[in-house]
């Protein structure tokens, strides 16, 4: 390590600079002894390990850079080290920080924003090198609010005119799945729950790919989908033993945080699998439901390409039929009421089990849900903007003198009430 220092305990030269709890520390990587800690107190031996350089030996590089920028650059390096990123990433991230700092809007920003800017630089570097890092991770590390992060990130991308590629799902799945602690038996993880990493990874990837093709990923946060896919993959590899385990328990076993939307993503994924199962002859007869379909996930994934293609092809013909049915339903429905459907109105052709009762699987879930409220057709307005305004209309908004007096009295009373000190 640079500096030629030696650990006073074990004498090793492997000293690492560690920025822990916002204090610079020099730590021996062999025995963990803290060689120097900040610059508050120094001993004679410490002097030799101090990082500060005397003025005559300094290069003057730091003179041109402001304190705040220096701190920021230091934080960027620290963050890269904490995330264990490859060394080249550090230089790129530092370069982005310096570039961003040149803009007056960012230079004059609050410290909170500058702190978040550190995270933005690291995120952009990772995205450009296809390193799967989510914004959630950075916000947790920086103790930052996602709203503040989002504002700073978007501003930085716009100001620097950067082209940031999207998060690579495949890499994210691999990294995220590897973090699940289910690959070895332990006191908390019974043997029947342990799974082979490669098998789980490949099945999760296939499920995520299926989710992507069937509109479950677009517009949504990627992580909950992956959590749901991982759980489903794990369950389907040994359904008899694992069907009893819930998603929450699974995440607790694997010591991974359960993101809130994951359970609804799981339901959506199961619904998609049920649709696909309806297309396979040997599964149609089984009359599967959301629990029993888990056992057949392997089969479905094996044929997923063909099934999805078929569903997409079928789906393109359906929407027109669906609209026609809806129109037919609405027309006579208004006059006769819903109770008369079973009489078999001529224009209404209700699906009596001939085709799947639910609409196509091609649509994103937000389009499949019924609208919360019927959007009223906007009334044709014939306002010209220059109409006369009647006095009475304006006067309805004004207080009468009596009302004004009452209001003032009420306000005064409230003031008095709030300013009265508590009784002793």
């Amino acid at each position, binding site marked *: 390590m640079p500096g030629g220092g030696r650990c006073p305990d074990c004498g090793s030269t492997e000293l690492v600079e560690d920025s822990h709890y916002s204090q610079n520390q020099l730590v021996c990587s062999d025995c963990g002894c803290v060689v120097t800690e900040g610059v508050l107190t120094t001993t004679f031996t410490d002097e030799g390990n101090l990082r500060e350089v005397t003025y005559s030996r300094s290069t003057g590089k730091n003179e041109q850079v402001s304190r705040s920028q220096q701190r920021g650059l230091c934080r960027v390096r620290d963050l890269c080290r904490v995330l264990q990123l490859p060394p080249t990433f550090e230089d790129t991230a530092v370069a982005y920080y310096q570039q961003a700092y040149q803009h007056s809007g960012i230079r004059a920003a609050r410290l909170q924003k500058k702190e978040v800017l550190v995270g933005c630089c690291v995120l952009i570097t990772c995205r450009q090198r296809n390193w799967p890092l*989510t*914004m*959630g991770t950075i916000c947790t590390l920086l103790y930052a609010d*996602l709203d503040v992060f*989002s504002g700073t*990130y*978007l501003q930085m*991308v716009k100001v620097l005119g950067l*082209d940031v590629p*999207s*998060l690579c799902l495949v890499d994210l799945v691999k990294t995220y799945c590897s973090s699940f602690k289910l690959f070895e038996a332990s006191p908390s993880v019974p043997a029947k729950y342990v799974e082979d990493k490669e098998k789980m990874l490949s099945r999760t990837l296939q499920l995520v790919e299926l989710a992507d*093709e069937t*509109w479950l*990923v*677009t*517009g*949504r*946060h*990627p992580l909950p989908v992956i959590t749901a896919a991982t759980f489903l993959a794990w369950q389907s590899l040994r359904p008899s033993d694992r069907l009893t385990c819930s998603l929450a328990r699974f995440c607790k076993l694997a010591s991974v945080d359960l993101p809130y939307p994951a359970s609804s993503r799981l339901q959506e994924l199961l619904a998609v699998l049920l649709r696909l199962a309806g297309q396979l002859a040997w599964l149609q007869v089984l009359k599967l439901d959301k629990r029993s379909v888990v056992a057949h996930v392997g089969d479905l994934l094996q044929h997923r390409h063909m099934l999805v293609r078929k569903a*997409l092809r079928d789906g*393109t013909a359906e929407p027109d039929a669906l609209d026609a049915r809806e129109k037919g339903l609405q027309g006579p429905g208004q006059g006769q009421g819903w109770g008369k459907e079973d009489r078999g109105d001529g224009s209404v052709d209700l699906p009596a089990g001939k085709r799947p009762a639910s609409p196509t699987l*091609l*649509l*994103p879930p*937000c*389009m499949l849900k019924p609208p919360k409220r019927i959007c009223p057709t*906007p009334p044709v*307005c014939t*306002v*010209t*903007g*220059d*109409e*006369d*305004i009647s006095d009475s*209309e*304006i*006067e*309805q*908004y*004004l*207080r009468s003198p009596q*009302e*004004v007096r009452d*209001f*003032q009295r009420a306000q005064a009373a409230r003031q008095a009430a709030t300013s009265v000190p508590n009784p002793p």
Partner: protein
Amino acid sequence: MLFLHFKIYFPDDLAPPRSPLLSPIVPYDVYIPNSSNPETMFNSQLEEVTETSGNFSSVDLSFLPDELTQENKEQTVIRSKHETEENCKTKSWQSRLPLPSQQDVDLALNSSGGSNSHPHLHPGDADSAQPSPEKPHSLPLASITPMTPVTPVSGCSGIVPQLQNIVSTVNLACKLDLKKIALHAKNAEYNPKRFAAVIMRIREPRTTALIFSSGKMVCTGARSEEQSRLAARKYARVVQKLGFPARFLDFKIQNMVGSCDVRFPIRLEGLVLSHQQFSSYEPELFPGLIYRMVKPRIVLLIFVSGKVVLTGAKERSEIYEAFENIYPILKGFKKT
């Protein structure tokens, strides 16, 4: 009878300030239609038309309804010519509105046929014309800029974006006592510690206004330009009734928001790849894709369900144009 709301010219004001045709800045409730004023209004309108463009043929007279055929156009040319003459002679405005006789019209036609510029400045014609003080023939003048096109052009998509919100500003041009307004108005809320303006609401059109002590006002929530203007006028009236000398200056639409539904799902990932330089899609932050169109300068929020929100427009046509531009792009991403 519809009249253009331009500035009322008072008799002693012979050099009216130049005001562009497109921003009517009359005090909203001062106009009283009586017999003398129509002439004044008509004179003043033509006066402005003359001032702003020398060559009458280049003036856009499309606001005039169909009954104003070619000969009527010439009549207006003659009238304005006479006005210019009268102005030079410093005659009183309200004396008469000279109407050319048929002879004058013929002369005018001849003269304008001969030369292609400034037909109304030929002094010869002016002398021969005999202004006859007849009652002005009522020209129903519609608004110069039709605020709403008769049928919105839907182009190839067949879908018309609906306007959802209009934000406009107006200057009431007088200092306001916000405490007094909050005290005397039922529909006002004022919390100086939270925000330095009075928040006022009216029921028809359903809008909200922010009224600042400098006299500036922001009106939001209307669904059309005319509604926004009507609402702003009502707020100004309320302020006026509270005893402030409020006027209605510089009404301007600052932002218009529209939305529509293309009725098919959209692959946002594909769209961000092909239109990188305009799009920003971060599913971790926001479920929609933010598309910044350059021409017209509109921001579109595109969602996977096919719903599109368009914002940043100053004119209705910008919203329609932006949607017509984006529709073929979105159709390209319809099939998976």
